[in-house]
């Protein structure tokens, strides 16, 4: 077993930041992922660059008041099966994550005091923060973590944590049975009996099947909250938690009410009460509620409504640059996408800058067809992408499609920018002889075909490291590999990248990966999306989070 104190790469990282081989953001994110506390990381960064900056700006925030936020109020009986980023807005104020990725994209320990990965990134020691207690008064212990992680990784819980951690925590077992639809019944089990190991009351060790740098990020995946084992995984009004609030009222699709608890172990809470108001998913109604001060803030606002709200005196604008995107992915198990020349032709016919401008206007930046964002620490700068219609036509002809090709692009109905992006793509493809028919389907229906449709546009949420998305979407045989892409070279490069803590060294791997995806990959990707919203100026302490999270214990309300 490798040494589990300070990760040896941290010293190199400090050296790299001193010489600016990595930038401040890369330094902070990688250092904290490797187990350095955010406070220490910020302090070291400050010493090197002279900038003041703290992990957390605590000021004399006013106390009291009720904050009303507009969001969809989902059923949250089972946080393990939460399927949208709006679900945790309610339950994560009560039951908390072991780690926390802030609006600055830096992941910090939360219920944990620290984590320590081994040199080979296969053993992670998680240390519980002292003094954390449940609302019931019982101490939060290693048993709670073991129970929760084991449950989240079981088939019965139905959690997407399983898909996220499957690669390094689980084995898939073929039961030999088939269900009514003739599909094999698969079961999952921990790859090793000691995969989740209690070391002592305050320490849990994760023993991984494969190296993984993003474990702390995965522990912040929205369903991965710590529930009281005594409540059997069921959440609701009055549920026990470790958070700053308790849920007192829940009416699905209408409203949820939370009230502050006394003696919270962390910052705040400053508010007495939070009310989440559901205005029914109608974007115009959300804007109306903000205008008439019926809510103090909104989950998010779409660009179409920005002009209505930007000049309102009582509202403040918040935005965050993210790696949130949608990719037009070609399923390589279907013709004509089984031919890499065709896939490249589909990319060469596109000018991402133009498509990005049409799709999301000034609230987006162009992508480069490789699903690695400039805000990712491992992003490698390649030569600018150039549209080449003549070459696209030639490649199609070479692949046997001299007369062009007819395809159907399946997209989700909402939000409306999906259609704008699809229309821009179809117009540009047409010049290269690609005739695309756009098929708009209800959002829920799309998720029934996202793994099988020959050509579809899928939303991929922001994730702080590029390797997380690449591993989820393009590694051979993984559950969310919607394109059926299977390239041993890509898998090998990704394995290597995931095992490298050094962003500079990883960047070399990433340059190869990004180039490979541009030449051979299964996607056409045109934009990265900024997320934004408006909050009442009375609200103190809010920052737009790249995955929409709101840490209500840090929020306060000014009078007036």
């Amino acid at each position, binding site marked *: 077993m490798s040494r589990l104190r300070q990760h040896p790469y941290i010293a190199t990282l400090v050296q790299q930041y001193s010489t600016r081989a990595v930038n401040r953001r890369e330094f902070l994110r990688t250092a904290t992922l490797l187990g350095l506390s955010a406070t220490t990381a910020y302090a070291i960064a400050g010493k090197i660059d002279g900038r003041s900056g703290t992990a957390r700006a605590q000021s004399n925030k006013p106390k009291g008041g*009720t904050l*009303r936020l507009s969001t969809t109020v989902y*059923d949250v*009986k*089972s946080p393990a*099966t*939460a*399927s*949208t980023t709006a679900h945790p807005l309610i339950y994560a104020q009560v039951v908390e994550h072991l780690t926390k990725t802030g609006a600055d994209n830096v992941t910090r320990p939360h219920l944990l005091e620290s984590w320590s990965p081994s040199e080979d990134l296969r053993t992670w020691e998680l240390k519980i923060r002292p003094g954390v207690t449940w609302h019931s008064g019982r101490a939060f212990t290693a048993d709670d973590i073991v129970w929760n992680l084991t449950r989240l990784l079981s*088939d*019965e819980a*139905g*959690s*997407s944590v*399983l*898909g*996220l951690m*499957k690669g390094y925590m689980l084995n*898939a077992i073929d039961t030999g049975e088939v*269900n*009514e*639809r003739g*599909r094999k*019944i*698969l*079961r*999952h089990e921990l790859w090793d009996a000691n995969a989740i190991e209690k070391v002592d009351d305050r320490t849990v060790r994760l023993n991984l099947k494969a190296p993984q740098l993003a474990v702390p990020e995965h522990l912040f995946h929205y369903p991965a909250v710590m529930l009281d084992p005594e409540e059997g995984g*069921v959440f609701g009004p009055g549920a026990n938690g470790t958070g700053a609030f308790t849920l007192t009222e829940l*009416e*699905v*699709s*209408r*409203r949820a009410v939370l009230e502050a608890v006394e003696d919270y172990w962390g910052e705040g809470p400053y508010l007495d009460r939070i*009310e989440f*108001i*559901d*205005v*029914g998913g*109608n974007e*115009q*109604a959300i*804007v*109306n*509620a*903000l*205008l*008439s*001060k*019926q809510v103090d803030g909104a989950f998010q606002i779409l660009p179409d409504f920005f002009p*209505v709200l930007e000049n309102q005196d009582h509202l403040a604008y918040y935005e965050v640059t993210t790696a949130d995107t949608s990719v037009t992915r070609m399923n390589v198990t279907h013709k004509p996408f089984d031919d890499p020349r065709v896939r490249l032709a589909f990319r060469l016919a596109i000018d991402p800058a133009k498509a990005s401008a049409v799709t999301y206007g000034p609230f987006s930046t162009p992508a480069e067809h490789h699903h690695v964002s400039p805000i990712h620490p491992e992003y490698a700068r390649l030569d600018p992408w150039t549209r080449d219609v003549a070459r696209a036509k030639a490649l199609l002809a070479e692949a046997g499609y001299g007369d062009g090709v007819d395809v159907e692009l399946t997209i989700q109905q909402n939000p409306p920018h999906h259609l704008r992006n699809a229309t821009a793509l179809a117009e540009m493809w047409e010049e290269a002889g690609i005739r695309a028919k756009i098929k708009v*389907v*209800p959002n*829920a*229906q799309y*998720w*029934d075909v*996202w*793994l099988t449709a020959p050509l579809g546009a899928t939303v991929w949420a922001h994730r702080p490291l590029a390797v997380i998305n690449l591993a989820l979407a393009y590694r051979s045989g993984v*559950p*969310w590999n919607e394109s059926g892409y299977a390239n041993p070279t890509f898998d090998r490069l990704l394995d290597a990248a995931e095992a490298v803590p050094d962003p500079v060294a990883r960047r070399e791997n990433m340059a190869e990966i990004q180039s490979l995806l541009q030449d051979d990959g299964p996607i056409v990707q045109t934009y990265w999306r900024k997320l934004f919203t408006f909050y009442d100026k009375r609200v103190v302490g809010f920052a737009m989070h790249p995955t929409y999270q709101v840490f209500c214990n840090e929020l306060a309300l000014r009078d007036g």
Partner: protein
Amino acid sequence: MISFIARRLGQFLFTLLAASFLLFAVTEFSPGNVASKILGPYAVESQVDLLYDKLDLGDPLLQRYTKWLGTLLGLSSNALADPAISLGLSDPRGARYFGNLGFSLMQKEPVVDVLARRIGHTVVLTVWAIAFIVPIALTLGVISGVNAGRPVDRGISGLTVTLTSLPEFVTAVALLLLFSAWLGWLPGTSTMTAGDQWSAASQLVLPVTVLVIASASYVTRIVRASVADTLRRPFVRTARLKGLAPRRVILQHVLRNALIAPVTVILLQVNWILTGVVVVEAIFAYPGIGSLLLQAALFGDIYVVQALTLLALTVAVGTQFVGDIAYMLLDPKIRLR
């Protein structure tokens, strides 16, 4: 009368059975798998399959329909409430009782509770809307009908034709812009939640106004036509020749006879508002039956959709029955058979 009620009840039950079965059949062809909707896009296939089996979604259509019917009648217990299948669904009334409408898969609660929370709001909206629609439509319709062809009739007719032709969402957005965004007199949404800085009454003003504009204009047109037609009938001429005062002719002879057609239309408006003013509720975020129907249909929450269909049928049959009684009272020549 008794045989009339019994026949109506029989027709109602038959319609109910046919409609509820048709709904089950239609959902067979509706897109999406409820299991994958519950677990979301990132659940792996084996997880979706497991839930699919727990929800018995693979059972034949007739078998699922029979189960639903048996549960509704209290003949069989609801399998989804079984703690052994770990869906976390429970009903405080028990698993077997008459009127058990099942569980909402979207809200993970008994459908009866989901409906109970919404129906009160819809009734309030209906009562207020009808309280304005009937007097406004009757007054304007009578004035217009009595003055048929005169400037006042042309004015009222022009206004009501214009308002009738405006879709509800246009009226709603226009009123929102004026009274909420520009003047700031009224709230932009009507969520009817406690603690809102706007009173419940102020939250009702805009949705009720939109419904009144949409409905009263149409009913006014019907009343006007009916009054104008009645005025041409011989018994009105006789009443006038007898020397009765014009006011008495209108109130005692014309209005009573002219009301038969408008009563049907007014009852249809009650039916419409009570069972699904989807557009108005969606625009104003009003927590009634209409917005619930929209959410349930989009999610594929079959048990909620079934319950709302049941409700709509009951209201339709109920209003039709009230209409029949009203005809009899208005015109003694009509007899119910």
